[in-house]
């Protein structure tokens, strides 16, 4: 797979067709935890895009330049990847605390939890273990494809998070039955939102 068209396809496939939040249920904790407030959602989306791009580049290099030549990729990829990601997140946290206290306060508990944001580890794992990747591509990504793929995944994350936040802000004003108020209604709304993504599944025959 090469050429700009194929890369576009990879991007759209990762961002929309296989949207990481709504069709694959990865990283839902932050999805429901942080989607009360638009300002926070934007910050979180940008943080995730930033962290994911750096993390998947780092883990790709780590896997192909260190783990695979040493023949320990099969056993050590989980601890190795998560360590690289954790170190990166800690770095982003320190940076934000120093240079943007407002954003740091807004993200609260969720910034350390980017480490446990499944999206980051899932994208890193899928780049080197494509059997997990459900688009039917059975080969290993090159570094460039890995970057496009990760950009697609993280943009899809941001897109879904922002649209859901907008829906939830509107929902504050809606009249909801008493027993569904709060999080149950949020889940049902998300369920309706995903209905649209089923239609995207047949796009490009992916």
């Amino acid at each position, binding site marked *: 797979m090469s050429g700009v068209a194929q890369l576009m396809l990879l991007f759209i496939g990762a961002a929309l067709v296989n949207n990481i939040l*709504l*069709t*694959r*249920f*990865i*990283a*839902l*904790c932050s999805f*429901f*935890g942080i989607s009360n407030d638009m300002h926070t959602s934007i910050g979180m989306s940008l943080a995730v895009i930033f962290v994911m791009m750096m993390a998947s580049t780092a883990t790709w290099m780590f896997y192909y330049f260190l783990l695979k030549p040493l023949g320990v990729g099969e*056993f*050590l*990829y*989980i*601890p190795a990847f*998560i*360590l690289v990601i*954790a*170190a990166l*997140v*800690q770095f982003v946290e320190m940076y934000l605390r120093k240079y943007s206290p407002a954003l740091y306060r807004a993200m609260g508990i969720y910034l*350390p*939890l980017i*480490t*446990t*944001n*499944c999206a*980051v*580890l*899932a994208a890193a*794992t*899928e780049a080197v*273990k494509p*059997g*997990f990747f459900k688009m039917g591509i059975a080969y290993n990504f090159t570094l460039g494809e890995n970057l496009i793929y990760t950009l697609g995944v993280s943009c899809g994350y941001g897109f879904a998070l922002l649209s859901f936040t907008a829906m939830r802000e509107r929902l504050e004003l809606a009249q909801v039955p008493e*027993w*569904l108020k*709060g*999080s*149950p*209604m*949020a*889940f*049902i709304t*998300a*369920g*309706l939102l*995903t*209905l649209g*993504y*089923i239609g995207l599944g047949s796009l490009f025959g992916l």
Partner: protein
Amino acid sequence: MKEWMRVLRNGLSLENPLTVLMIGLCSTLAVSTKLEGAFFMGIGVIFVLVMSNVLIAAVRKFTPDEVRIPIFIVIIASFVTIVDLVMKAYLPSVYSFLGVWIPLIVVNCIVLGRAEAFAYHNTVWLSVADGIGMGLGYTVIIAGLAAFRELFGSGQLQFLGATLVTMPAFYRPPNILLLFPGAFILFGLIIAGSQALNRRIAAKDAAQAASLKEAV
């Protein structure tokens, strides 16, 4: 021992990781299309939770605060690797169904969340209770949801190749239960139910306290 039971019960009801704390949702919704997969996912999570809680509680006195998260993560990742390799060796069909979700136990918010919120501040003994309670709370919900979705979404319930229950022939399974919207909407209803239950428990406790006061 009373305290131990209280912590254990907490995970099952008042602080159930899924329905109350709402963490660890990702795998719950994704894996709950098959009872078998959901059950072994639950077993894996219980194993990782208990073992990592024990180890983290044991080393909490020598863990520097600044690097605690990487330390937690390495401990958790080691136990997840054990689950990953064991499941690959002995349960290949379950392994291929769970796929990326096994490595993702590492970042299951429940495990790290409990390490940070509970094991890091409590004794080893209590952390065992917390691990079992939280793990069971997770497994009950995920297996229940999976059983419901598999039975009503595909028309029969299977476990390790054996068919447990089959719906009558006139029943036409609605595919939407197995697709993403079904997962979200069903889970929303589960949360609504558990919130109602917890409200009732809280009301009962309040009434009990009031009557105790009167008796005094």
